[in-house]
């Protein structure tokens, strides 16, 4: 299997799966045109020059500025809201409250539990309560403090366990809760059991088990939330928003505003980082829309950093009790986990989170017996949601730690024990029938072991210096869309006119991960043309066909396939035109370097432009549409759809750390990060995704945590919420493993999320190798590590 080294050169060009390129007969070993090349992002020059336009950079004639008033109580009845003083302030044009929008919304059709602004009660400290549009930001900021809100406090649910109990209906945060627990604040409970778990534990030689605790974390994107709405003179709403999923915002706006979808245009601005934190439809999007409809003026809101933290949707705080069973050869027999995840105030993606926390533990190892009890609860804390590696990251820390504990107990090298349990390629998982196609995890782990000199380091480094391993897998897009309908998950349109420019229309959101570049590469590859012919328009719902957007690591796989399909339709027409021009009917033409070359007579060739103009005869611009829909997959039991994907990525990471036993401070030295992404369409971007994932995982591992007191977020700024700086960050060696997926575009799978989860256990296991303590609380802060070291010393002294 090819391993791409640091310079991005593929050391083995052999293609494992024939026919991955096009269905028109290109040989499997054909050299790629632009696929696999290190490509700067198509919008990079706009970003490095400051030309790129983000939402807060936008200005419109007559634009008003909005500020939002947030709740100051975690759980309270709203007795009254008096906006009269705010409205009387000169320069204030409109004030809105929850009474102005009664329709509930939410990203999942099953959890429509958000309001544009709170009505009757507030359910977290920070929830939007009212908003002002004024001539200047200063006036708006002054006005919101003139709004008088009277609260009557209610019992607060600030610990996830307190949400499990039965309460009076008035104390339920939402009307709709889990059907099996109708009087509680449990949002969604998932219970699954397959195989004989009890028997497996009885027969086991090693049964590592532990209780784990994870603090909540935030996406920490650098661009604060910012949106502009304009209810224009044609009675249409134009919403400019840095959205990962413009389509879901489009749907939610229509519902909240009681408008047909076509009366709304959502325009994605440049997105200054998302990581899942810009994938829900948001209250502030609804609020500026309401204010613009009221004033008929453009209205902008730009949140400060504290408000951005309070908007939330980060990784769920989690409490897990997990046990695994192994036989004496280290063969995995069973996994049993009981998990409570704190959803905070809203549903968000939480039903999915409740499933993912369990079912995504069915890889990268074969689990012959599986039990999972998961509860996602509502609480009076900031809403949790989807964050990079959604639902898979915290449970992955648990299982990878327990696998390591078993390895130590059984006297087997932790890497060797993992190699004994990996899923194979081209297989199904036992119960959920997750379909594994290509799988490069063995090659990845072997390469990471080799490069890190694992065999000479593991267990052999001096006290305070250690090395650890962590493995993971992740979906390449959810096979089942959130909205159950017959529409494809991705559609891409192409338009080519006589100027020779190729316009790609898509609603896949480029959020900095480089999806525009990926779409351009897929099209350029099929048509054998230069990248600078391709112009990607992926911002605007009026012109772009629906795509379900940038989450669940779906874009390369799904939108990439749709782009390829559209380009192939154009290719057929250009082939016909070339055949007409040359009299070579029925011959195969290769598309190489802007020429169409007759395969059987290589001297017969037609320039791309000549073929294009011939193909355009009588019809004008060439237009094509391509789409992608997942094949039918999975099992038939209720809830079996969660975790299904047309393909899965795999990763194997090794981390080396130093731990100061006097202070508990961890210095990560190096991370070897092997990630199987199928074919690396753009190795520069793939490395960037892996390195970024390592950095973000490292933050969760060591320093990042959302801290609360009485329901108030204490560290809602980038000084106290500690994202690793250059000094905290290790050297990262991204190792691209190319396994060539049979269904991914040109063999590609995901690389943006799966590479996060293995970092945290690799660090945790390295800490164990360094100082002999197991960390069951994440982040592994110096005080926690010190406490663990002291506990161990006390126990040893006894």
């Amino acid at each position, binding site marked *: 299997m090819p391993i791409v080294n640091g310079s991005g050169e593929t050391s083995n060009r052999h293609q494992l799966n024939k026919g991955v390129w096009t269905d028109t007969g290109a040989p499997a070993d054909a050299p790629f045109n632009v696929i696999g090349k290190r490509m700067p992002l198509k919008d990079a*020059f706009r970003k490095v*020059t400051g030309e790129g336009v983000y939402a807060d950079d936008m200005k419109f004639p007559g634009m008003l500025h909005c500020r939002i008033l947030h709740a100051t109580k975690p759980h309270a009845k709203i007795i009254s809201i008096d906006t009269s003083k705010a409205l009387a302030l000169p320069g204030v044009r409109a004030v809105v409250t929850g009474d102005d929008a009664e329709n509930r919304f939410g990203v999942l059709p099953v959890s429509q539990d958000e309001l544009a602004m709170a009505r009757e009660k507030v359910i977290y400290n920070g929830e939007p309560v009212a908003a002002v549009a004024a001539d200047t930001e200063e006036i708006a900021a002054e006005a919101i403090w003139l709004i008088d809100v009277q609260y009557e406090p209610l019992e607060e649910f600030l610990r996830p366990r307190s949400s499990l109990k039965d309460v009076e209906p008035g104390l339920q945060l939402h009307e709709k809760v889990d059907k099996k627990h109708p009087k509680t604040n449990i949002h969604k409970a998932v219970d699954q059991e397959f195989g004989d778990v009890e028997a497996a534990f009885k027969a086991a030689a090693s049964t590592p088990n532990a209780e784990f605790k994870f603090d909540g974390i935030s996406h920490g994107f650098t*661009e604060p939330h910012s949106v502009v709405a304009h209810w224009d003179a044609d009675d249409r709403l134009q919403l400019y928003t840095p959205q990962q999923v413009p389509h879901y915002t489009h749907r939610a706006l229509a519902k909240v505003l009681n408008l047909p979808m076509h009366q709304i245009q959502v325009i994605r601005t440049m997105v200054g980082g998302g990581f899942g934190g810009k994938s829900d439809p948001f209250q502030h999007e609804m609020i500026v829309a309401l204010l613009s409809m009221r004033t008929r003026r453009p209205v902008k809101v730009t949140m400060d*950093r504290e408000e951005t933290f309070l908007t939330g949707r980060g990784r769920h705080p989690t409490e897990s009790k997990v046990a695994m069973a192994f036989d004496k050869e280290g063969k995995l027999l069973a996994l049993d986990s009981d998990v409570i995840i704190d959803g905070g105030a809203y549903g968000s993606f939480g039903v999915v989170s409740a499933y993912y926390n369990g079912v995504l533990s069915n890889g990268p190892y074969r689990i012959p017996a599986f039990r999972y009890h998961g509860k996602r609860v509502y609480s009076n804390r900031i809403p949790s949601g989807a964050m990079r590696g959604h639902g898979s990251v915290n449970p992955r820390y648990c299982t990878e730690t327990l696998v390591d504990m078993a390895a130590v107990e059984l006297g087997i090298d932790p890497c060797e024990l993992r190699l004994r349990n990996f899923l194979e390629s081209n297989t199904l998982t036992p119960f959920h029938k997750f379909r594994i196609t290509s799988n490069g995890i063995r090659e990845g782990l072997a390469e990471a072991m080799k490069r890190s000199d694992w065999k000479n380091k593991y267990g052999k480094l001096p006290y305070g210096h250690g090395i650890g391993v962590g493995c993971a897998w992740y979906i390449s897009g959810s096979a089942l869309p959130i909205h159950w309908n017959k529409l494809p998950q991705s559609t891409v349109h192409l338009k080519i006119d006589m100027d020779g420019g190729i316009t790609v229309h898509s609603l896949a959101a480029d959020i900095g991960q480089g999806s525009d570049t990926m779409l351009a590469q897929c099209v350029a590859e099929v048509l054998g043309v230069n*990248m600078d012919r391709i112009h990607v328009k992926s911002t605007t719902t009026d012109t772009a066909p629906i795509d379900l957007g940038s989450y669940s690591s779906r874009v390369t796989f799904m939108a990439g396939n749709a782009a390829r399909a559209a380009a192939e339709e154009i290719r057929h027409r250009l082939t016909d035109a070339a055949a007409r021009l040359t009299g070579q009917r029925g011959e195969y033409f290769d598309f190489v370097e802007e020429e169409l070359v007759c395969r059987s007579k290589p001297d017969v060739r037609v320039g791309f432009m000549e073929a294009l103009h011939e193909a355009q005869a009588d019809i004008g611009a060439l237009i094509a549409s391509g789409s992608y829909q997942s094949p039918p997959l999975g099992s038939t039991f209720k809830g079996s759809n969660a975790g299904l994907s047309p393909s899965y990525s795999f990763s194997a990471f090794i981390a080396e750390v130093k731990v100061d036993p006097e202070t508990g401070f961890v210095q990560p030295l190096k991370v070897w990060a092997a990630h199987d992404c199928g074919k690396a369409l753009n190795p520069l971007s793939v490395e960037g995704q892996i390195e970024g994932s390592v950095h973000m995982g490292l933050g969760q591992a060591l320093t990042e945590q959302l801290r609360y007191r009485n329901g108030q977020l204490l560290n809602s700024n980038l000084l106290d919420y500690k994202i690793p700086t*250059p*000094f905290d960050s290790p050297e990262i060696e991204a190792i691209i493993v190319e396994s060539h997926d049979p269904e991914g575009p040109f063999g590609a799978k995901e690389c943006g999320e799966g590479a996060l989860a293995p970092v945290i256990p690799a660090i945790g296991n390295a800490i164990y190798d360094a100082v002999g303590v197991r960390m069951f609380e994440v982040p592994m802060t110096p005080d926690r590590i010190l406490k663990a070291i002291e506990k161990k010393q006390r126990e040893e002294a006894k």
Partner: protein
Amino acid sequence: MSKHLLNLKVNGRDIEVAVESYHTLAQVLRNELNLTGTKVGCDMGTCGCCTVHIDGKAKLSCLTLALECQGAQVRTIEGLNENSMHPLQRAFAECGGSQCGYCTPGFIMKSCELLEKNPDPTRDEIKAALAGNLCRCTGFMKIYDAVESAARGMRSDAPARTPVKAGD
């Protein structure tokens, strides 16, 4: 509230602008002068997105009151791109040093100050210079690559690479 007249040079141009005493340089650059390449990520000096040069020194424009810049020479990301792209801008694009791009102008301005003082920095010197800038996308590796690549290019005055074409 009365406005004050502020005179300064921005990217080589003489500017006269009326500002409130509480306006920051970042606000004046973005809102009054339409130089929106300077980004505001935290507005409290913790992320480095708003870094500009004031009299040749990299400073946080969100923590600098506009009126402190009376008579000063200010250079922003737009000022690096007057006639042709600065080698750092090119290198950040080509080395993958910019993903979402929001922190990029700040990183480039800070790196530019470094290379003007130290044309051949070690990786540790680059890290030290950039320690006050936050990037959430890249894990910093490709940013270091970009600074090193630009430094090499500026030392040798090597012609800039051109974007990848078909068949390269």
